[in-house]
């Protein structure tokens, strides 16, 4: 009996050691990003493996310099607006369509839903050239509308919400029907509030993927004043690639808002991305 206990103890410790090593590998790039951001360029490029922390004071002013010279205020504003409108549009259109596909009977349902599934199977790169040409013809390059454009509707969200609505019990709707609710009222007052968790998942999923998108903002918003954080970083790297502390300070500024939101709402984040990703 004693040997079994020792054995499980050894296994426990081994598992922790492996997990700690992996955690370390995951953390090092972040740590090095932050530490470099706080050094002078001279310090950053001094070749000494033990020179981990900034020796001559922590240069917090690097953040201020980067903030001003790269117009981070604009980058934040544009990213925020793009995420906001994409989330609102995705949730709104997907919940309506999801309800119809999940709950109602109507001619053409099978065909229309097959279009939704086809869209999900095709890689997004196929759509980019014509989408760009449309935005360009509308004169909407370098606008928030241009950034939001491909995310106005979502096939994936429709699919996700459809499964959400299908999982709800039938009798709720029937009871509401007896009480004299029409379909619009049933949807708005009874069914939609019950799919809140699917909507939150879709919202988080949409926000994270809009935030991470690089190619689309680079194409439609080429000005430093109109583009997003991701595309802004690409621009900066092209111009100032040898000022390492500034580059790392910019990277910190770009990832921090999402990281902080993630750490606060991590349960919703992980579940949201896992449930929606799991159904993709």
């Amino acid at each position, binding site marked *: 009996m004693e040997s079994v206990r020792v054995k499980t103890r050894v296994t426990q410790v081994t598992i922790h050691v492996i997990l700690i090593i992996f955690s370390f590998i995951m953390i090092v790039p972040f740590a090095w990003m932050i530490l470099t951001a706080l050094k002078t360029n001279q310090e950053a490029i001094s070749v000494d493996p033990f020179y981990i922390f900034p020796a001559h004071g922590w240069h917090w002013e690097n953040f201020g310099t980067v903030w001003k010279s790269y117009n981070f205020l604009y980058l934040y504003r544009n990213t925020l607006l793009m995420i906001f409108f994409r989330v609102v549009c995705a949730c709104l259109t997907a919940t309506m369509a999801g309800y119809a596909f999940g709950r109602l*009977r109507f001619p053409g349902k099978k065909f229309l839903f097959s279009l939704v599934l086809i869209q999900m199977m095709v890689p997004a790169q196929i759509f980019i050239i014509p989408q760009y*040409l449309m935005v360009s013809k509308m004169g909407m390059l370098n606008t928030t509308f241009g950034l939001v454009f491909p995310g106005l509707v979502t096939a994936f969200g429709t699919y996700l919400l459809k499964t959400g609505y299908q999982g709800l019990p039938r009798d709720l709707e029937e009871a509401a029907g007896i009480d004299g609710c029409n379909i619009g009222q049933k949807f708005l007052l009874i069914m939609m509030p019950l799919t809140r968790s699917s909507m939150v998942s879709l919202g988080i999923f949409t926000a994270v993927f809009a935030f991470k998108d690089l190619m689309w903002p680079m194409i439609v918003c080429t000005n430093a004043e109109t583009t997003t954080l991701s595309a802004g970083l690409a621009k900066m790297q092209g111009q100032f690639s040898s000022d390492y502390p500034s580059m790392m300070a910019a990277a910190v500024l770009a990832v921090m808002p999402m990281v902080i939101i993630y750490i606060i709402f991590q349960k919703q984040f992980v579940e949201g991305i896992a449930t929606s990703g799991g159904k993709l």
Partner: protein
Amino acid sequence: MKQKMTAAQKNEAMWAWLFVAPTMLGLIILNFYPIINTVYQSFCKTGDFGRGNVFIGLKNYATVMSDGETWQAFINTIKYAIIEVPFSIVIALVLAVFLNRKMHGRAVYRTIFFLPMVCAPAAVAMVWRWLYNQQFGLLNNIFHTNIAWISDPKIAWISIGVIGVWSIIGYNMVLFISGLQEIPKDYYEAAEIDGATGIRQFFAITIPLLSPTTFFIVQTRIIGALTVFDLMFMVMDKTNVALRKVESVVYLFYQYAFTNGDKGRGATLVMVLLIFILIVTAILQKSEKKFVFYN
């Protein structure tokens, strides 16, 4: 066949069409018209902003298919997938099995592993590029080496693959954990009574019962890896000597369509990629029955 609908059915259909209208209209304008337009453009020589399309038949396809750079980009993309997909999946599976139990610090580990998932790949790539820096980078400093991690064509593709693995482990792990939670506990209890070791349980119970999740992750990761762009774009300078040996198909597509403004050629390349992905998907679907265990 056609039956007259009752008033209630008509009413239901009206509401349904009203509800699906925005999404369907959007999908047609944003996705289905673009598919047709991309196919059309792949047969055209395009001027700036898509004006002056001249029909040239299969000429774009001939150019793209006879260009060595296209084939190299496909090889590069497949090589990237060969690094990213298996490593990120195996490591994520091991971590998921470790974390799928009551233990100290479980939430902390999960938070850390998942962290890259909420970071913009543009920023992640910038940081890794700095770590890989040949003169001043952390890696060469720690190991006292002088390796050109991202400009030696022989190893640059591995270095990029490592960033890909690092970025996606947490995501795969979270999907594995939710898959693991669906395996009934009594299987393990029965195995315990029979005296099966942890490792034996892993191969005899976990692997087969988790195979639907695994198959799903493999499929989405393969398609994700075949359309990789951000890492190559952010890590590789245009002057990098290893660029030719690393650039992905989507990277090349971006170059053709948006840097050089040759939309026709870009459209053709992306059509070739689509066909390739559809073939891969079909093969995967065929193999599903063989590898996936449904009880």
